[in-house]
């Protein structure tokens, strides 16, 4: 009897396996099954919060109060808000300069690291440190270095006889913004350097040798050989960086808190202050959504450019 049962069970398993195999051979079904986890994750963690933010931005929701539909009133209020106007300008300034510096320094570093020298691997790995350390920790360290009273940089410059009075690293609006750009550059440059280095290593040395034989100097070789071949990688890195920098929050929150006198607020930090700090969730959502069209345009241009390059 037991033998019969075992045989039936084995038969059932075979049938199930073959049914699964048949299903697996159906390409459409297999594709749907493989895509499903990704789609579910995107829907839960990207689409749902985004749709909620959109809905919030159209309502007068406050903490603990569902509010009511107010149309575009929150967006109109934001456009009329001088602190938001300043935060928007700051965000553009911060993103523009930080990206320029990260690209220039990252490229320079990548070109150096692409050469052969002793301890190359250790140096390449250690260069990633600023990128690996949690932003909050590194921002705290920088905050100490820029401290209005106890700045180690002021101490060194003072004792070296270079300054007679403290430099207002974080207590002047302009200085504070440049300090934030500096810290962002320090943190983001390794990402540029490593990615560009990876791109550089795909460029055949033969091309450089051929150019050299044709009499091209180092600058010409870079401009006419390296740069065009590196452009697609550069573009991708720049787009990622622009997205991250434009929506940056942690660094400013820890380094300056948006001060002095709101002069370093970015869209993200101001939206947080209004939405989460003051409990005006609808207004905060509207403020943060001002980032969306800008970032959307950046991604759209990048995709269009890449498509054109592929076609060429």
């Amino acid at each position: 009897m037991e033998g019969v049962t075992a045989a039936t069970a084995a038969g059932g398993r075979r049938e199930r396996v073959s049914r699964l195999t048949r299903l697996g051979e159906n390409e459409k079904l297999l594709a749907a099954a493989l895509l499903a986890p990704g789609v579910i994750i995107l829907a839960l963690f990207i689409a749902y919060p985004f749709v909620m933010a959109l809905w919030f931005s159209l309502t007068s929701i406050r903490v603990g109060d569902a509010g009511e539909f107010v149309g575009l009133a929150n967006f109109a209020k934001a456009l009329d808000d001088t602190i938001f106007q300043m935060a928007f300008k700051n965000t553009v300034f911060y993103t523009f300069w930080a990206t320029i510096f990260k690209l220039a320094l990252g490229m320079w570093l990548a070109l150096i690291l692409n050469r052969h020298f002793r301890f190359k691997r250790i140096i390449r790995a250690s260069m990633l440190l600023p990128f690996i350390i949690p932003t909050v920790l590194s921002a705290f360290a920088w905050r100490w270095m820029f401290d209005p009273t106890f700045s180690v940089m002021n101490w060194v410059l003072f004792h070296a006889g270079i300054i007679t009075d403290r430099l207002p690293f974080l207590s002047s609006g302009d200085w504070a913004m440049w300090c934030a750009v500096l810290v962002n550059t320090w943190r983001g440059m390794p990402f540029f350097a490593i990615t560009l280095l990876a791109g550089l290593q795909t460029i055949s040395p033969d091309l450089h040798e051929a150019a050299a034989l044709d009499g091209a100097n180092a600058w010409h070789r870079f401009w006419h050989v390296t740069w065009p071949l590196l452009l697609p990688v550069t573009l991708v890195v720049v787009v990622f960086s622009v997205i991250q920098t434009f929506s940056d929050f942690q660094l400013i929150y820890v380094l300056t808190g948006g001060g002095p006198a709101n002069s370093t607020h970015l869209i993200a930090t101001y939206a947080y202050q209004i939405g989460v700090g003051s409990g005006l969730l609808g207004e905060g959502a509207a403020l943060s959504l001002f980032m969306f069209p800008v970032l959307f345009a950046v991604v759209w241009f990048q995709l269009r450019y890449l498509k054109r390059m592929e076609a060429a």
Partner: protein
Amino acid sequence: MARITRRTFLQYSGAGMAGILAAHRAPVFAQANTVHILRWNDFVPAADKVLREVYAPEVQKALGLKLNVETINANDIPARATSSIQSGNGPDIIMLLNNYPHLYASAAVDVSAVADEVGKAGGGIYDASAQLNKVGGKWVSMPWSVVPALIAYRKSWFEEVGAKTFPKTWKEYHEVGKKLKAAKHAIGQTLGNTFGDAPTFTYPLLWSFGGQEVDAKGKVVLNSKETVESVRFLAQFWKDAHDEGGLAWDDSNNNRAFLSGDISASLNGASIYVAALNGADKFKTEKGAPLHTDILHAPLPAGPKGAHAYHTAFNHMVMKYSKNAKGAIEFLRWAHKRENYEKWFTVQKGFAVGPTREWEKHAMWQKDPVMAPFRTAPLAQKRLMGYAGQPDKRAAEAWNKFLVTVMYAQACSGKMKPDEAVKWAAGELGKVYTGA
């Protein structure tokens, strides 16, 4: 040992997940007998130790409640409160500063019974605390303490520039400050976007010159010649007498600057003095004496329209989403009993005063005359944010946007002229009050 098969595991975990989804909340273990309280990282760390090491075991014994104490940076509390209320999950009690109870009133459990009992037993809760914690006639949170803001100053350095007593008016303070800065002992004051020392300085300064945010009907009247005068005064005072790095300070920078001998005076709770007292071997004057022996406290000076003060209120809100609101209320009732509250109160050494007048009579005040000005400081608090209107949610929004503080900071940093700074602040305040 029982064998767990994959099938059993899936059955149990599936059932658990279904339960979580049906209940719309994450599991909270031992929820029934636990009270989770969220507070700030106290500037007197010994007080947090009392909560964890004295209150927790004692309340477990007395009420069978497990007290879970969580402390974070005070500037981050509003964010935690918002996320907890929106998700319907979080601490059972949240400590809220100043008039934040007005912002979160709809998420609060009525604690009027506890407030009435405590007020009756303690000779009455301070008027300012009542205004900050009562919304629509109900106590939406329970006042726990008030941290008075007084100026801590270096007695010897003030004497060296001819000030035998602390200046009584802003004008006198300006003159003394000029001499102090010339002697490399500038005054230290934060004008940063921070919760405590900045607004407790700027609001009273505004009031003492006759400026105010709104009139009694809620109309914004900030843009007045009195306000412009106060901003003009501070811009000059700042340049002549202050450490100009204060524009980037938070609430802890002045403590560090004072304790390291960099500044001669700063508006503060008593935390500078308490730290100097507790670290008598560490913090010394340039002559080698313990620093605390050279510190005195004084109220903010008077302006053309009198002297004013704002003292930071610390309140406890029992959250409506709490599954153990009853336990949370019982904990507050227990904590406010004289014999229990006293344990926390005495380690504060006067940094925080009690919510009722009873605590003015405590024997602790006899021990240290330097702390005496803190004893009755809350009585001097006649105005609150949003004056001459109510300290309601619009006043809280303006406070949270640091509008008054930024108005002064704009002028002190030279970014705007005094009249421009006032016009800007009045414009932003108008949007808060009209909802435009």
